């Protein structure tokens, strides 16, 4: 099958630098530099990699261009030695992606201010999978995988320093993982809420201005979240950020097209609000300055495994179990290993989109290699499956059995303000249909891998050491108390067929 990005052209390529617009009918050049789509006016580009071509129209396809080489494993054209900057490189995703990209031949640079490490420490927790100091991580990446990573300790809010680093590295793609990813953290108190919004919103806004100034051709791939959309009780489908062309709004016997407009957002925490604000800032920046961006609405991430992090204990990526930074599957597995019941909120009927770490990394490689056109803000829903939280708990409990662990499930008061029961219909067609993503990790397989790793004595001891951090204490209503239990039950004793079923469209 022809690689999915074979027909993409210089319009999509970050090496194509816009040089100007010319209207040869009037022998006139326009003062404005715009990526106009008018056939009557010529867009002139220069290739930063193939200067010998001079100025030309952006029509060379990836398949025709020698700078884009076919990677047969991915069946994907990849830009030779593509320069990628990862913001938040020390994090759960940032580190795994740095290694994945480095292994594939990308030139990786990145920053991190270790805020995540600090926050988890603030909670009195730690990553259950031990991770090394950055100098050691970088050394191991070089020794084991032969990867050079150009890392700087830096805060995304330190714009002068970040600008200098962008000028030095001239990234062709920027992966933005440098946001605080925790809803509960943003709900602790006013200081935490402000800190999250300051880092996320102002960090992203500043980044957009820097991209405009220094690397306007670069593709910003920003981590969003499926949580931006909320879970509409009407069951209307969750489109990929933007309404499809044939969507309409009907009211008062009249009808309007919604095609191309941003879909409604219904954030469920001050963290989610910060992500929504980022979405608008990115959307506007693409419109005003002809930047290009993917917003990656990621489902709940889980897992420990990628080929690269598993290559050496020093290369492992972090895994958090605490109520602030542990995602639900990761927490369930640690709770199970601790012999605690798996805590589900309310009825546990919440439907969520999920994706395993390695699948998410595969998606990122595909997104990096298929940039949107300049001026285009695009959104992908990055999920590989939908599952109800209570069904998820059953799956984890079932796998636990194979490791000799009997696990119960406990319903507790929901500390969040959200619907316990709701329908969910998610459209996620761009990654599988347009970008060649093929989810290869099943829940069962990845959860098994997690148990294999997390039951190792050293890691198990680390989990036990921080047992106190796992139960939810941060409530959306601000009351300082742990959620109380409604009931504890054995897996297999509840009817799992009732209630809403998630619908995921991938074609």
């Amino acid at each position, binding site marked *: 099958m022809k690689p999915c990005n074979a027909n993409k052209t210089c319009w999509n390529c970050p090496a194509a630098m816009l040089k100007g617009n010319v209207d040869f009918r009037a022998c006139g*050049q326009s003062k404005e530099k715009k990526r106009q789509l008018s056939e009557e006016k010529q867009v002139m580009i220069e290739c930063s990699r193939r200067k010998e071509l001079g100025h030309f129209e952006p*029509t060379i396809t990836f398949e025709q261009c020698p700078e884009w080489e076919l990677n047969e494993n991915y069946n994907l054209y990849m830009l030779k030695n593509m320069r990628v900057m990862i913001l938040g490189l020390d994090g759960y995703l940032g580190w795994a992606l740095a290694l994945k990209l480095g292994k594939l031949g990308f030139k990786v640079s990145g920053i991190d201010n270790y805020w995540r490490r600090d926050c988890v420490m603030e909670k009195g927790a730690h990553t259950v999978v031990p991770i090394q100091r950055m100098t050691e991580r970088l050394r191991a990446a070089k020794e084991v995988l032969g990867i050079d990573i150009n890392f700087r300790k830096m805060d995304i809010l330190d714009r002068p320093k970040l600008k200098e680093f962008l000028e030095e590295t001239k990234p062709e793609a920027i992966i933005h993982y440098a946001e605080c990813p925790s809803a509960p953290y943003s709900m602790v108190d006013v200081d935490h809420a402000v800190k999250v919004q300051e880092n996320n919103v102002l960090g992203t806004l500043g980044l957009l201005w820097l991209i405009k100034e220094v690397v306007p051709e670069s593709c910003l791939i920003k981590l969003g979240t499926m949580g931006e959309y909320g879970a509409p009780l009407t069951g209307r489908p969750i489109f990929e950020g933007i309404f499809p062309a044939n969507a309409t709004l009907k009211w008062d016997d009249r009808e309007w097209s919604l095609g191309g407009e941003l879909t409604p957002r219904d954030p469920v925490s001050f963290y989610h609000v910060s992500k929504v604000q980022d979405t608008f800032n990115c959307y506007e920046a693409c419109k005003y300055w002809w930047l290009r961006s993917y917003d990656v609405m990621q489902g709940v991430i889980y897992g420990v495994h990628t080929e690269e992090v598993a290559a050496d204990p020093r290369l492992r990526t972090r895994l958090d179990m605490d109520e602030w930074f542990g995602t639900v599957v990761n927490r369930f597995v640690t709770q199970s290993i601790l012999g605690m019941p798996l805590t589900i909120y309310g009825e546990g009927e919440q439907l969520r989109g999920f994706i395993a770490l390695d699948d998410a990394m595969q998606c990122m490689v595909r997104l990096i290699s298929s940039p949107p056109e300049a001026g285009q803000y695009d959104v992908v829903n990055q999920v590989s499956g939908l599952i109800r939280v209570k069904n998820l708990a059953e799956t984890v409990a079932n796998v636990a059995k194979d490791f000799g662990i009997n696990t119960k499930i406990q319903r507790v008061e929901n500390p969040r303000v959200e619907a316990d029961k709701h329908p969910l219909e998610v459209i996620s067609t761009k990654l599988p249909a347009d970008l060649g993503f093929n989810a290869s990790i099943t829940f069962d397989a990845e959860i098994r891998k997690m148990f294999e790793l997390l039951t190792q004595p050293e890691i198990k001891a680390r989990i036990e050491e921080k047992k106190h951090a796992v139960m939810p204490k941060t409530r959306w209503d601000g009351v300082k108390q742990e959620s109380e239990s409604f009931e504890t039950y054995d897996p297999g004793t509840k009817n799992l067929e009732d209630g809403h079923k998630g619908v995921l469209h991938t074609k």
Partner: protein
Amino acid sequence: MGKTVIIGLDGVPYHLIDNLSNKGVMPNFKNLKDKGIFKEMESAIPEISSVSWSSIITGVNPAEHGIFGFMDMIPGTYTMSFPNFNSIKAPAFWQTMDGTHAIINVPSTYPAKPMNGFHVAGFVALDLENAVYPQKYIPMLEELNYRIDVDSEKGHSSKELFFKDLHRTLDARQNTALQLWDETKWDTFMFVITGTDRIGHFLWDAYEDENHEHHQNFLDYFKRVDEVVGSITNKMSDEDSLIMISDHGMGLSETNVIVNAVLKNNGFLELNDAERQNHNHIKANSKAFALDPGRIYLNKEGKYPKGTVKKEDEEQILKDLTSTFENLEKDGKKVIKKIFRKEEVYSGPHLEQAPDLILLSNKGFNLRGNLTKTEIFDKDIFTGMHTQEDAFLFVKTPKSIELPKNPKVTDVFPIINKINGDT
């Protein structure tokens, strides 16, 4: 020893400058005209600024300098490239002639290259930084609000703003020229005004129609152009020589002729469906395609990725194309005046790159290389189009030199050479 001054007026036909100087709109030129030789000059084929100015400054034809249009294709591909000064295969006079040269706003000389003197490139020049040599002059140009070109978008959005921009650009260019005249040392001074072409494209109807709302504005602009010319020529001494030229003429555009639509409708060209059409979507069985304005290329096997025209079939296809275009009519009027084969008009090492056929249209028919349109004839907002036969040449020199009877753009270089005393 006298110096040489060359003033270019882009896109100004012989008859316009003759007419406006006789009418009193351009008194400075009127005064000059009586003291020198004023002739019609043949433009390049095709009559495109980039081709013509390249011939003017190098003295050679496109098969030697390699510029056949504003656009060409990257060899071996269907990707359109925009040749610039790096693409010119022959040296400009200021790169070979002795002396110091000040070169201002000559089209198709971007990016500026090291030379003995000062150079600011003209259209298409994508940024000032690479348009100027030596770069130490950039702050001065910025101080003078120097502008590479009129903003063509204004011609679309508002004619009032367009005029304002034309004047603003001309004022800045004049100030720059005068300051450089005084502050730099030079033996040859070349200065081109390009607003004359832009106004022609957008408002030729205003020139021809005395009742047009912008007729007076059109004349006023040329009055300003004449003042600028005067402000330079008044600084010259009797020992100095003056050459004034245009690169092509201008006339009323009545109908656009979409050459590729003719090719499509007659089975020479077929495109694959695509959201955004470009030449990559030419189907392999296509025999020919066109680039602006009337350049026709055979889709030759071995030359293009999907080329299928074999050498032995070329002659027949050229004949078929010739007869198709010879017979093309609108309202009983023949569209095409002349059809050249490349060997007839070009000679030199880059002949292979040249279009296989070059069409010259009859008056009022504006040839276009648009790829996607399917209708052969249309009209847009542009009322002026380039003309090939009526550029102008004016020479006033104390030296005794003979001008060709029917000068062409390639003759300008030898004239400069003779005046400068080189052989």
